[in-house]
């Protein structure tokens, strides 16, 4: 269905991932003494399982022409509320994990719906509005869990409250749910140095298939139509606002589930009640962009490749910084700079291209 791309076009389109691959390889070479390759591979497999679902949740709004969904943070908050509810009930195990996801869905629908309404009012400014909305929602979230939880919203489980009974504790131990999915069907390679969480990846594969399927339904086609040209869609009798709302709802729900997977992945297991959600948006967005996605075009492969590269850089940058400059922080600031730069450059390119029509 697409024209055969030329070699130069292919290079141009994949410039960002190629550049990142080069950076990652340079980083791996620089840090070769600090980390064994199979340890690195194991780490990255774990991180891929942890983050990929969240990154995939960004695709639908891009297809609908709403750009990168900085409001995904709101889905992440809903996911955390799901976990808080499960912890409050004192449940544990795989069932508790599933329950947390189930609880998060209605919340995501409500708050995703509010997000969608706001973004429909801010057409053409969806990204900045989503970003500020995320900051704003963070304030509301803190108000609810820091001030109202305890006195106004009674909790069953006193252990997750602060000492004096008002406000949730700053960290909540997710021992009951953490690692449960990863450990369900685990395959070991290289004598256990690489642990492949099959169940988690099956869930991610299911999402990928689901997304592919959805984009080829009538509803998905409407999404693509709106994404290309709202005016033409409207003239063709498509309810543009409804379709955009649908895109945000899907993204928010997936974001909530993705956040739960992130927090309960092997090696995580602790929720920073008031900050775990904050960095979710920028990092997931940087990841999908590193894979070659743009403001108007994102696919499953962009998400997979991007998450892989981004996390590789994330792991090796501090080690490389230590090896080359003798300072871990240089690597840390560098990866942060890179995350901001990749988003900034993508946004700038998008604006530049759309201006030239």
């Amino acid at each position, binding site marked *: 269905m697409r024209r055969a791309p030329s070699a130069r076009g292919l290079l141009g389109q994949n410039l960002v991932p190629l550049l990142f691959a080069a950076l990652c390889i340079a980083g791996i070479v620089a840090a070769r003494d600090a980390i064994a390759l199979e340890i690195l591979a194991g780490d990255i497999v774990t991180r891929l399982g942890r983050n990929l679902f969240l990154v995939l949740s960004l695709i639908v709004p891009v297809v609908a022409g709403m750009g990168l969904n900085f409001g995904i943070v709101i889905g992440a908050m809903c996911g955390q509320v799901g976990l808080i509810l499960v912890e409050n009930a004192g449940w544990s195990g795989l069932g508790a994990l599933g329950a947390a996801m189930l609880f998060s869905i209605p919340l995501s629908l409500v708050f995703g719906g509010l997000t969608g309404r706001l973004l429909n009012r801010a057409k053409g400014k969806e990204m900045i509005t989503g970003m500020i909305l995320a900051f704003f929602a963070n304030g509301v979230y803190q108000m609810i869990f820091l001030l109202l939880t305890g006195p106004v919203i009674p909790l069953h489980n006193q252990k997750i409250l602060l000492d004096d009974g008002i406000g949730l504790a700053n960290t909540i131990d997710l021992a009951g749910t953490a690692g449960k999915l990863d450990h369900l069907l685990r395959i070991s390679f290289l004598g256990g140095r690489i642990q492949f969480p099959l169940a988690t990846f099956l869930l991610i594969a299911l999402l990928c298939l689901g997304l592919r399927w959805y984009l080829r339904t009538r509803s998905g*086609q409407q999404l693509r139509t709106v994404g290309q040209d709202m005016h033409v869609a409207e003239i063709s009798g498509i309810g543009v606002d409804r379709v955009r709302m649908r895109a945000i709802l899907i993204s928010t729900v997936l974001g909530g589930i993705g956040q739960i997977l992130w927090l309960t992945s092997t090696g995580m297991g602790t929720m920073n009640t008031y900050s775990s959600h904050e960095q979710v948006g920028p990092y997931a967005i940087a990841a999908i962009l590193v894979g070659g996605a743009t403001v108007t075009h994102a696919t499953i492969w962009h998400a997979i490749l991007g998450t892989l590269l981004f996390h590789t850089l994330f792991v090796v940058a501090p080690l490389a910084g230590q090896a080359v400059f003798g300072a871990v922080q240089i690597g840390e600031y560098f990866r942060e700079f890179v995350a901001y730069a990749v988003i900034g450059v993508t946004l700038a390119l998008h604006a530049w291209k759309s201006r030239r029509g």
Partner: protein
Amino acid sequence: MSNPALVLRGIRKSYYGNVVLQGVDLEVRAGEIHALVGENGAGKSTLMNILFGMPVIHETGGFEGTIELGGTPVVPATPSDAMAHGVGMVHQEFMLLPGFTVAENIKLAREPSKPNVASRVLGPWGRGLESLDLKRMKQESRAALDRIGMSLDEWRPVAGLPVGHMQFVEIAREVDKENARLLVFDEPTAVLTESEAEELLATMKALAGQGIAILFITHRLDEVLAVADRITVLRDGAVAGRVDRADATVEKIAELMIGRALPERNLPPRPEGRTPGVALHLQNLVVEMPGEEVRGVDLDVQEGEILGVAGLAGQGKLGIANGVLGLFPATGTVETSGSPLPLGDTLGVLKRSVAFVSEDRRQVGLLLDESIETNIAGTAAHVQGRFLKGSGPFALLDKSAIRAHAERMIEEFDIRCQGPTQAVRRLSGGNQQKVCLARAFTLEPSLLFVSEPTRGVDVGAKDRVLQLLVQVNRERGTTIVLTSSELAELRQVSDRIAVVSEGRIQGILPPDAPDVEFGLLFAGGTAAGRGGDAVPQDSVSARLDGDAVGRRDPGEGS
């Protein structure tokens, strides 16, 4: 063959008390090509907006009269409503998605689909989740393309198709609709090359032969004569006449389009003893103003005259002034009073004693949220360094001099306002226009371009605006190039009237020339006497460029 596909009876419509359609009757038979012609503002767009149930109609109080489609009375409330009754539109600008394939575009929002597990489980709510039936999409698109004789690969992306093919994809989409009964072609040949246009006309005939009714809106009278079975001419919101093809000539249609009583010219005399000379000399001026391209204008404007520039919308008459002022990219030779004017350097032009009142009063002509005095004096301060204390970029504005000047202008121009500090946004259209003129006159130009000075201005203020132009022309000897869509007002005040069509000046007429001569020039330069047998050669190259861009604004009458 003769049962009507569309019958309009007594269609009346007004926008905010301003009547734009005053009882239009129209009948289009199945299998007939019916041409609808008229000047801008004659009411064609409003009529089509009503037929399509566009929101702009219902937001402004609906319309009067009845519409019948295939014998059933219909009140189209939305575009999809109209579509459901078998009305299709081939737009002047393409309603295509470049990222989609031809087939996807033909089937846009009407994709065939088949149920799957998810959609079955959800029952009546699951229709949106049905899988696309790509095979049927391909087959049905193929059939629609075949029906209009296009051998285009249905899986090709639309991006990169030649303009002419895009038009055919649009037609295929309309034809593919099961109940397609009436197709409206809105200026379809505007963006096509000549051979593409011929192909299109042939396709229109073929479609009519299949029993589809076609309503053909155009200003190209040669095309009308080539394909239309019947012709309806609209003028000032009413039917000016109906002609069968057998009786139609270009002259007859042109006269029907223009036909107005010559307005009374009651102008003050010019002072004696002016030396004539050329105030403005244009040679091969080409201006890339989207939607108003100028494609090579040669023109001499005499010192001290008022030259009217007339023409239909989109033909390039507005581009001339914008190009000379350097607001859009232009090439060619421009001389004022014998010395060349730099192109693209607005500041340089303004410094040469040239001033401009833009056709787009709100977007270009004014700083809406600034005060009247800032609007009047700002340009003079920037260009001529007047109303300043001191000199250089950091010279302070002389607020008291500006105030005094603004007060004088308010009185002289009779600007109805609360005072010089009132924001311009709050003024009526007529008073806003007077502020624009006041700003231009403040520059004390020797050559003044004024475009569409009476657009959106109420009747009383209209006369005052024209009177001011005549006054400055007579008293100060200012040369004026007056561009307007209203031929009547040009005939009222101009010394000569140049008619622009297809981006060129088709002829210059005295204001009292007969209607038919104006009509012929308006319709694309089939100049008087030559009859309606040929499109002039230069319009071929004009068509090659593909110009109709950026006109999404419905409601020409508003």
